[in-house]
């Protein structure tokens, strides 16, 4: 625990504390006591978050004998893995765009509702998340199957059936289904915060619905859009469950190949290397989205 002591500011340096309370030594001591309370948290996060990630990096950059290599990370240039990564990127971009297009009008409708009923509606959108997500995805299997529920209904209506099960389209549908609530909630929160007066003012100044949407609603909800996109894109990009269940083994995403490295071929080094590549893509996408959010805030401040 000696590392904790170091974090305690030497007397005189903790300027805010010094200003707040003239009896500095007492405050300083009680502050140290309080900081100690974070000890279990620090221990847990070091042992079970930082160390595991460090070990994953060391696995990813070493070969089986333990010497340094870039082969595991460079495995991504292997056409099999590269194709899986590109497919994962494509499908998750499509799923994210579809989620955004579905969720934005929805969040606008929810925003326009009376407070009480909107609360109940949000409740209805969160409720499905309480049924096991694997089972809900499996249920889509029964709905989409060749002899499934949807084709049965289409047949009764005399319409041709659909055959999307075990194709990328079914995987996108599964992603949209699973992560749509993650898009709706931040969008709704951002839109609900916009003052009615601003929208009324925009209408009074002669803007129609689309102009208001473009110049008022969307700029004011960028933070919600950004967090919604991140919350849909990251799990879609990294999933192996949705593609496994709805792709029927025919749609291999990067997540599936990483999972197989660990559970089927037991090549942990390559698996760790590919995981590092995946992590880089996740972090890069977040950095892009955050930059977007910040630059927009800055431009709004200037305007």
């Amino acid at each position, binding site marked *: 625990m000696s590392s904790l002591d170091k974090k305690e500011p030497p007397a005189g340096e903790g300027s805010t504390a010094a200003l707040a309370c003239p009896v500095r030594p007492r405050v300083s001591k009680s502050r140290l006591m309080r900081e100690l309370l974070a000890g279990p948290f*620090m221990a847990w996060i070091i042992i079970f978050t930082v160390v595991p990630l460090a070990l994953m990096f060391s696995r990813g950059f070493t070969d089986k004998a333990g010497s340094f290599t870039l082969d595991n990370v460079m495995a991504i240039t292997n056409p099999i893995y590269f194709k899986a990564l590109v497919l994962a990127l494509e499908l998750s971009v499509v799923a994210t765009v579809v989620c955004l297009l579905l969720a934005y009008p929805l969040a606008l409708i929810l925003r326009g509702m009376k407070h009480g009923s909107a609360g109940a509606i949000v409740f209805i959108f969160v409720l499905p998340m309480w*049924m096991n997500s694997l089972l809900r995805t499996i249920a889509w299997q029964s709905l989409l199957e060749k002899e499934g529920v949807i084709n049965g209904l289409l047949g009764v209506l005399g319409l041709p059936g659909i055959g999307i099960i075990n194709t990328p389209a079914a995987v996108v549908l599964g992603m949209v289904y699973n992560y749509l609530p993650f898009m709706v909630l931040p969008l709704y929160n951002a839109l609900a915060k916009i003052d009615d007066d601003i929208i009324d003012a925009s209408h009074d100044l002669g803007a129609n619905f689309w102009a208001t949407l473009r110049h008022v609603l969307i700029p004011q909800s960028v933070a919600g859009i950004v967090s919604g996109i991140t919350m849909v894109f990251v799990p879609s990009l990294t999933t192996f469950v949705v593609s496994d269940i709805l792709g029927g083994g025919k749609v291999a995403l990067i997540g599936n190949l990483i999972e197989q490295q660990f559970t089927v071929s037991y090549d942990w080094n390559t698996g760790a290397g590919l995981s590092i590549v995946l992590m880089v893509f996740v972090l890069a996408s977040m950095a892009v989205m955050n930059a977007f959010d910040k630059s927009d805030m800055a431009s709004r401040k200037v305007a």
Partner: protein
Amino acid sequence: MKKFGSKLYLGLILLFLYAPIVTLMVLSFNSSKSRAVWGGFTLDWYAQMFDSPKIMGALYNSLTIALIASVVATIIGLLACIGIQAMRRSTRTFWLTLNNIPMLNADIVTGLSLMICFGAFGISLGYGSILVAHIAFCIPYVILSIMPRIKTASAGTYEAAQDLGASPFKAFVKVVLPELMPGIVAGFLLSFTMSLDDFVISYFVRGRGVDTLSTLIYTQVRRGIVPSMYALSTLIFVVVLVVLLVQNFAPGWIEKQAIKRKERKALKADPTNEIA
């Protein structure tokens, strides 16, 4: 026309969200084991579910892990928030950044890195490793729920309580804790939900023979799901629905009843007194 359009849109989205859930519920009463054929109404799967040691074992694991993990994570997270708040700004930022890692990381990376870690230290995979992993990914959500409240919780009242003679511990329990309570409850519920629904992380850190509901379902995907799983999840869904309905609508109802009772009491006790 515009109103009708919105209602139609809402209806279609709800259909999309609830179609699989209704499907599962219907399948739980289907006497045919095939998902494509309706073989008539039955309650057999509900009966079989209670007789299956595998399903009951997985249910027990899921529930106890979720409960223990969320309680432990809530305690560690609460203490952490108090400690972090006392730190210098730079130290605080450092620890809060570390705290964000499990939330930003993909589940598959978190799960795999823990699996590698347990392997490296020779920790055998099983119930304990799942529990430890769940505590690890729950803590950040607890801190996320409590931290904003601890920032607004006034240091003034805490110091005032101490100036008035309360010990630091008593001042904390009597003054600060009540202010944090909504955040604590939210963090606990969030942890419980995340833990119960987690599949990916449990999948990588579980040992052979130890299953949670999610991992049990996944192992059945290829061999065909036992319809008792549908029965169990239908049951869980209905229980959660009732709990949430009560939680959302009961407080308002209880309050109304309490006000009515108070009014009646006040009238009885002092008929001359007018209720403002």
